[in-house]
């Protein structure tokens, strides 16, 4: 029914009410810590939309998997076999080193470092808003995901879980402006804090004195301080140092190792005590970890 005369409060009053309510919601959402649980419910409510939005991409990659030619499959197979051979050779040496390191730590009475349980997860959606770098992954509270869990890709730290839903969860990337990660330089153990600057391929080191022993090409690894990220995972490499003496601190830029703009598969890490049943234990031989039905399908 078309109405000539509008009913209810005038347009301007409605606008004013909505603006005030929005501002109130913003303040409550940022300042009240317990609001995170409410957001979990809201996320679960809108997750069907995310699944639908993900369908075209999922179908494309499914059809690419099905219709790739025998030639490419053979080529990929050869490449991956070579890679596995090379990596298992490195792994053999690494195992011995790890054992040696454990023994040495025992001699020094230092606590032995536990390896982490892991689980592979897949990207579901990318936050398209340019103001925050977040992604959604397809594992949630049902899989044992917890708040501020570390997320990695095959080359370095990607970020941490910022919101947990029932079947999916949100990851805050290390490049987000609100994210900071404690790091140390691998070469000399100098500690810094790497803060995201809103661009996917750079991080800023904060409060670096001009005299700090830091060079371009230095490798940053997570320092384990702050107790969010486990120690010793690669974060990035230093690409630019500007030592302008008129500024209080040197301006140091690093590039993250993780390919934050082309994420597809990610790893979730669990400490030994809290790992869920589905996670891959650190001491499994990786070729055995693949379920047998997958292998049969591939043969």
């Amino acid at each position, binding site marked *: 029914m078309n109405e000539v005369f509008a009913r209810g409060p005038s347009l301007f009053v409605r606008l004013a009410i909505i603006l005030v309510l929005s501002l109130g*919601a*913003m303040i409550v959402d940022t300042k009240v810590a317990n609001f995170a649980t409410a957001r979990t419910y809201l996320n679960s409510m809108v997750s069907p939309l995310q699944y639908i939005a993900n369908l075209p991409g999922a179908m494309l990659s499914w059809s690419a998997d099905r219709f790739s030619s025998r030639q490419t499959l053979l080529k990929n197979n050869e490449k991956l076999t070579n890679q596995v051979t090379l990596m298992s050779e490195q792994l053999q040496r690494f195992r011995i080193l790890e054992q040696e390191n454990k023994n040495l730590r025992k001699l020094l009475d230092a606590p032995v470092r536990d390896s982490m349980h892991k689980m592979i997860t897949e990207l579901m959606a990318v936050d398209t808003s340019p103001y925050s770098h977040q992604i959604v992954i397809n594992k949630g509270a049902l899989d044992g995901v917890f708040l501020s869990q570390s997320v990695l890709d095959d080359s370095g730290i990607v970020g941490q879980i910022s919101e947990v839903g029932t079947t999916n969860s949100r990851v805050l990337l290390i490049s987000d402006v609100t994210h900071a990660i404690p790091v140390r330089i691998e070469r000399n153990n100098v500690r810094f804090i790497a803060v995201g600057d809103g661009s996917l391929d750079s991080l800023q080191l904060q409060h670096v004195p001009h005299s700090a022993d830091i060079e371009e090409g230095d490798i940053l690894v997570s320092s384990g301080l702050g107790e969010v990220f486990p120690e010793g995972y690669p974060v990035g490499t230093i690409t630019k140092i500007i030592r302008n003496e008129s500024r209080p601190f040197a301006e140091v830029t690093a590039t993250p190792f993780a390919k934050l703009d082309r994420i597809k598969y990610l790893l979730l890490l669990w400490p030994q005590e809290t790992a869920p049943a589905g996670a891959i234990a650190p001491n499994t031989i990786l070729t055995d970890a693949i379920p047998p039905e997958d292998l049969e399908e591939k043969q």
Partner: protein
Amino acid sequence: MKLNQTLIPASIIVAFILQIMPMPASIDVYRPDWLLLLLCYWTMALPNRVGVGATAICGVVLDVLYGTSLGVHSFAMVIPVYLVAANYQRFRNYSVVQQAIMIFILSMLYHMLVYWLQYWLTGVQFRFEFLWPVITSVFLWPWLFWFLRRYRRLFRVT
């Protein structure tokens, strides 16, 4: 009658999906403001059905989908939609080119509001890449306008 009620929500859901569909990072910066354009169209064509109230609800849903603080997008979208709702008769009589210019201003306002609110909440740095969607939205508007008018007349949405 029943079908008629669901056509606008259906178009809004499609706009949500287009808004959050994962894209390669290189194309992603050019993604037009599907939801804002759609709400502007419906507000202009049927101000008795869609207005600031519907926009506020859509904005909150978009905030949940984007993971931004609740209220950022509802605040930023309600103001452009209010301007359309207040001037819908004038807007209807504009040519498509004039409408596209208005869309430029509205979309710019929307992006600046989102930026200001995000700056206030998290202290983000401004980049000109943030304004690419304004340009793509302007070029999308004539096609979207034509398509939605066909849609509205075909299904007699009132």
